[in-house]
């Protein structure tokens, strides 16, 4: 992630400005290849190394959950310029301030857990 500059705040900004193909190419090609692997899992062509079938847990359904949660995540993603994976790569890079973001993200997760029953899903 560091090497392809996915951890750069600017790459995320650029993506949301539609000014570069870079991030779209990365996510798009990962999905294309991902689709092939998911198909192989589903058709049971590929099993785990222990020979068990691979079931990818389906995501929870719910328009409010996905849309509202998604929008909130998107706001944070564009502001922090990092989603959860890259945040940790930035720690390794020695960016001290990202720890505040990670702390915030953990806090946000805690708030969700606390407010879960009151939110529309």
């Amino acid at each position, binding site marked *: 992630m560091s090497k392809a500059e996915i951890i750069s705040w600017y790459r995320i900004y650029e993506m*949301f400005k539609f000014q570069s193909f870079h991030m779209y190419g990365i996510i798009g090609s990962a999905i294309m290849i*991902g689709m092939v692997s998911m198909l192989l899992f589903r058709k049971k062509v590929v099993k785990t190394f222990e020979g068990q079938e691979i079931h990818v847990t389906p995501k929870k359904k719910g328009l409010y959950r996905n849309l509202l949660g998604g929008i909130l995540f998107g706001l*944070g993603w564009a502001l922090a310029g990092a989603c959860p994976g890259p945040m940790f790569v930035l720690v390794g890079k020695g960016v001290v301030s990202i720890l505040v973001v990670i702390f915030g993200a953990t806090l946000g997760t805690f708030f969700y857990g606390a407010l879960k029953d009151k939110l529309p899903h």
Partner: protein
Amino acid sequence: MDFISQPWAWYVAGPIIAFIMFLLYFFGERFGVSSNLETFCSIGGAGKFVDYFKIDWKQNSWNLIFVAGAIAGGFIASQWLSPSDVVALNPQTVQDLADIGIQNAGSTYLPDEIFSIDTMLTFKGFFILLIAGIMVGFGARWAGGCTSGHAIVGLSNLELPSLISVIGFFIGGLVMTWLILPLLF
């Protein structure tokens, strides 16, 4: 060695991500980073306050190792494999950022206006970092996944909830980038 020290093109990075995901499932695990934040809460004792976090976090140890690997990878890449921190941006992007008050875009990976220690130590700077994190954490759990779980795994698996979430990611991202960021600096 030239290949390693140059920035990697999208057609290198995308397939690597897909391969990592394949490996995780092949070894009977899952691919998804934001659930680690939940694990952090559980380790930190959040289960005492909120039932949601009463889980056996040791089951998620592989994901935690993924996080440790990401930190190590970031360290290795920046220490030894990246001779330059310059990000080759579209000149239009650099201009747009200068217009909203972010100077020297692309000279390093991150803008000082958000991530420098000096900024972090101001009230506004700290608040921006914290709020960004809270939105990411809260949003990811509400939606049930982040970029890895929804955009990559979910879309690969042709799941409607993931498509809706990714549309949400973009609505939020576009609103932040086009409407809110210009007001912040």
